[in-house]
Every structure is written in structure tokens, then in C-alpha cells.
């Protein structure tokens, strides 16, 4: 089973990379773009037939490895 994981910084945490990207978009002359946040995207191939089992495995991986829960949130997506 293939799952995707998106890890993003928590809303209240400053994202300097997102800020610089936003500034650059402004410098490129593109207007009305705000609140850019940069995150990470992962694809996981999990050998479980049952979605719930796969999801719980992915959750465990996220909590213990892919995300730092002090500053980051994660979202698991079923493809």
C-alpha cells in the first residue's frame, strides 16, 4: 500500500525559507501571493493490506522519524 506523508512546520513556527520564497515571488512581479510555507513530502510503500494497519505504521514512522513534533505537523494521505 502506497501512502504519502506531508510534514509542515506548525503555524506558529517561523518559516524563514517560506518567507524568502514569498519575497522572491514578489520580486518576480507576481502579486497577491501570501503565507507561503515550505514542507517535506514523502512516499511510503507499506506492505500491509489493510489501510488502518498501514496508516498506524506510517503514523509511528512520522512521530518517531519524519516529523519533529515540537515544531512540525504531519498529514498522511492515502493514494
Amino acid at each position, binding site marked *: 500500500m502506497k501512502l504519502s506523508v506531508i510534514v509542515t512546520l506548525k503555524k506558529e513556527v517561523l518559516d*524563514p*525559507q517560506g518567507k*524568502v*520564497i514569498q519575497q*522572491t515571488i514578489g*520580486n518576480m512581479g507576481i502579486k497577491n501571493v501570501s503565507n507561503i510555507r*515550505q514542507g517535506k513530502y514523502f512516499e511510503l510503500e507499506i506492505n500491509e493490506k489493510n489501510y488502518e494497519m498501514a496508516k498506524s505504521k506510517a503514523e509511528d514512522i512520522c512521530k518517531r522519524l519524519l516529523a519533529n513534533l515540537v515544531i512540525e505537523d504531519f498529514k498522511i494521505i492515502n493514494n
Partner: protein
Amino acid sequence: MRSSVVIFPGSNCDKDIAVALEKFNFKNLMVWHNETTLPKSDLVVLPGGFSYGDYLRTGCIAAKSNIINGVIEFAKKGGLVLGICNGFQILIETGLLPGVLIRNKNLNFLCKNVYLKITNNKNNFLSKFNKEIIKLHIAHNEGNYYVDERNLKTLEDDNLIAFKYCDKKGNIAEENNPNGSIKNIAGIFNKKQNILGMMPHPERMIDKYLSGEDGKLFFNNIFSKHA
């Protein structure tokens, strides 16, 4: 000869290259990335470093800075542009050079001396080189050059590869490839050969008491016009 070195936030080889250029009789000016016009120059250098902290992709934010339009215009008119390390990454992000520089194959930051074979000396950068194999220093995390087959064929057919990683004797093989670059490529030219992007740092090899002098050859030979 007049040169300009562009400084981006996070550039850290700007001073080194300025010292090298002045040592070899360039009248050099430093240019801040926020400027919109380049001073009159014969050579523009984008130095090594970590512009914008390598945010998003290496060189990508710098490639959108104010001064870059001036650099592109200068290059399109045939002016000589040299990108070293992060400067090479920036040139690629501007689209002036083809391909991409990705993470080193072994995932290590590389900081060492390497041997390079000069594979094209029929241009205004390398024409008076009297050596075929030189030793320069590399220091990078994203120096693994990759380009699709079509563009690689153009690079090879038009002789646009400047340097390849090799061993002391000039053998180009996988074991002499420090970062996984396709065909051991360490530096390339654009089609007109007035733009050179290279990962090695010639500015770090200009004094025999400190490191070596193969970089001296490099700076002495820029503008020795190819007949």
C-alpha cells in the same frame, strides 16, 4: 581588465575570488545583489558560498535577484561570465547553462583536492593553458552534475565540457568521480563559450606556499583570446 564579483547574502568565497582577481591584475569591483545595473566589466564572477542558505534549491533564490537580469544581459552580449561552485549552481538556475547540480552521490560534503582534465581549451577561458591535467580544490554538497540525454549529446557534440574529474594521470573513470557527476563533468560552457560554470575553486590555488598554483594558470589565461 575589469571584473565584477557579485555578492549574495550567504556568499563566502567573494573575498577569495576578489583577492585572486586583483593579484592577477584585474580591476575588481564588488557588486551587491540588490543593485540593478552592473558596473562596466569584462568579466563577471558569481562566487562560491551558500547564497540564501541554499533555501528551496541551491542557487535558486539568487537566480531571481535584482542583479541577475544585468548578468544575463551581459552574458547574452557575449561578456565573460564565470560561476564557481554556488555560482555554477546559480548560472544553472538562471537557465544560462543546462542541467542541474544535485546532492553528491555519497551524501557527503566534499572538501578536498581533485585532478581535472581540461577537455576543451579552444575558448577565451582556457586557450593558453599549457597543462592538460590540473589540481584544484572542491568544497560542495550539491556538485553532482546531471543533464538529460539530449542536452548531454549537445554538450559532447559541441565540445562544451570544460573539465572532467580524473586521476593524476588523466584517467577519467568512475573511481575518480568524487560526486557522481554524469561523465565525470566538473565544468561546462554555454554554446557561445563565454559562460563557464565549474564546481572546483581556482581562487584557492594561487599561491605555491599555501596550496598550489594551478589556479594561477587559470586567472593568467582568462582573456588570452582564442585565435
